């Protein structure tokens, strides 16, 4: 359970984001407590993935402010004045955040072990020996220690995604972002990935943001659920409230559709 009365680790204040004429995020605000497990749900195009991409600095924002761990993500103070963040500032901020993608995005030319050790060795100066050691622990945790020398092309989708999780964890982020990490998987491979998430949820104190269509898993996993529609948060509450007793009409309609499509809630 997230502790109360602590400063939020993520604070989003009135951000706006458009792709051309399409407004993806509309004056959006919310905050996340340290160690909180947050599920972001909603129809596609509702802006939930965009939030993760903005936090990972893959997309910028048009206006508003984001604080991560007390520091502004897209602005920095220089000579007492706020300025747009430079590469060094973004680099420092990204150290706090890891991301796992829907399509894995493993480096196809590197073996599993090198996928996991690349970033710690390059960005933190970790020695080969220490990086290998930590990577093997992580691969063991996701159940793939025996695949360390395999190439990504030799793995199943579920295995690739577990490697991708290990790769993100290797940088020891405080915040982990999971962007529809099971959406591209064959149904029988979904569970092995969810099991890893579940393990992380129970055994680590990372803050986790999960964008998902797995409503059953979101219900069990999350401390709090945000329901997005058209770039705004329509409903924000505990999983039981959102899934069992949604107050908003749009949430009810969405959940009905999802259940009709065969997802368990």
């Amino acid at each position, binding site marked *: 359970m997230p502790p109360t009365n602590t400063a939020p680790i993520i604070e989003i204040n009135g951000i706006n984001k458009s792709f051309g004429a399409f407004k993806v995020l509309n004056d959006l605000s919310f905050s996340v407590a340290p160690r909180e497990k947050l599920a972001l749900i909603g129809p596609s195009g509702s802006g939930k993935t965009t939030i993760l991409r903005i936090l990972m600095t*893959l997309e910028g924002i048009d206006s508003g402010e984001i604080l991560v761990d007390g520091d502004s993500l897209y602005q920095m103070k220089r000579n007492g004045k706020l300025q747009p963040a430079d590469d060094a500032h973004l*680099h420092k901020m990204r150290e706090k*955040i890891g991301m796992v*993608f829907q399509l894995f*995005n493993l480096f196809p*030319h590197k073996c599993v072990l090198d996928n996991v050790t690349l970033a710690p060795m390059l960005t933190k100066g970790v020695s080969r020996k220490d990086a290998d050691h930590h990577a093997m622990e992580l691969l063991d945790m996701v159940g793939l220690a025996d695949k360390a020398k395999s190439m990504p092309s030799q793995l199943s989708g579920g295995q690739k995604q577990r490697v991708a999780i290990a790769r993100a964890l290797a*940088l020891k982020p405080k915040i982990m972002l999971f962007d529809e990490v099971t959406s591209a998987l064959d149904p029988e491979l979904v569970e092995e990935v969810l099991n890893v998430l579940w393990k992380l949820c129970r055994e680590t104190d990372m803050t986790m943001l999960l964008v998902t269509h797995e409503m059953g898993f979101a219900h069990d996993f999350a401390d709090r659920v945000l329901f997005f529609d058209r770039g705004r948060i329509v409903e924000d509450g505990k999983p039981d409230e959102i899934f069992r007793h949604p107050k908003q009409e749009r949430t009810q309609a969405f959940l009905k559709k999802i259940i009709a499509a065969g997802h368990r809630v």
Partner: protein
Amino acid sequence: MEWDWAFVIQILPTLIEGAKITILATVLGYILAAIVGLAIAIVRRSKNKLISRPMGFVAEFIRGTPLLVQLYFIFYVLPDLGLTLSPLVAGVIGLGLHYGTYTAEVYRAGIDNVARGQWEAAKACNLNAWQTWTQVILPQALPPMIPALANYFIAMFKETPLLSAITVLELMNQARSIANYNYRYIEPITLVGAFFLVISLISVVGLRWLERRYGRID
């Protein structure tokens, strides 16, 4: 006119000297073209339009004018501006710049073929621009481009006789001076043609091998 084997043997050493220069100019010119092309491709990708636009203009300008004119400019006009180059250096620079604008297009296509997710994963792994290019993007982009790059190597090789126009003593120039001196064209010019044919055929076999080896990656 009869084929004279004695004359062939007499001129062969001179032609071999020329062939060495031809090969040297090709190799050096190609190395330069490979580097210049990569630099053009990367600079043209820059988000800063003040950098990418002028580079695009320069590349189009070089590609849109004949190599022979460029060679003349580098060798005969630059000295007026205070830069005098030896014939071979001028020739290598001319070949490298000209073909660099072609290899740039190969690089551009190869780089564009790397999935966008790879750039994003590199960013999520907090790699900087240099690390992203050298560790993630180029190792994936380069192998599929190797056949196309090798193709320009062969094309450039066959254009090296143009260097004779700026007094480089490459194969064609040697053959022409032998011919002019002896009033016999058939042997020297035939040998030049045979030399280019043999090297080109060997190169094509090598190119086919490269295509099989690197043509596609999974």
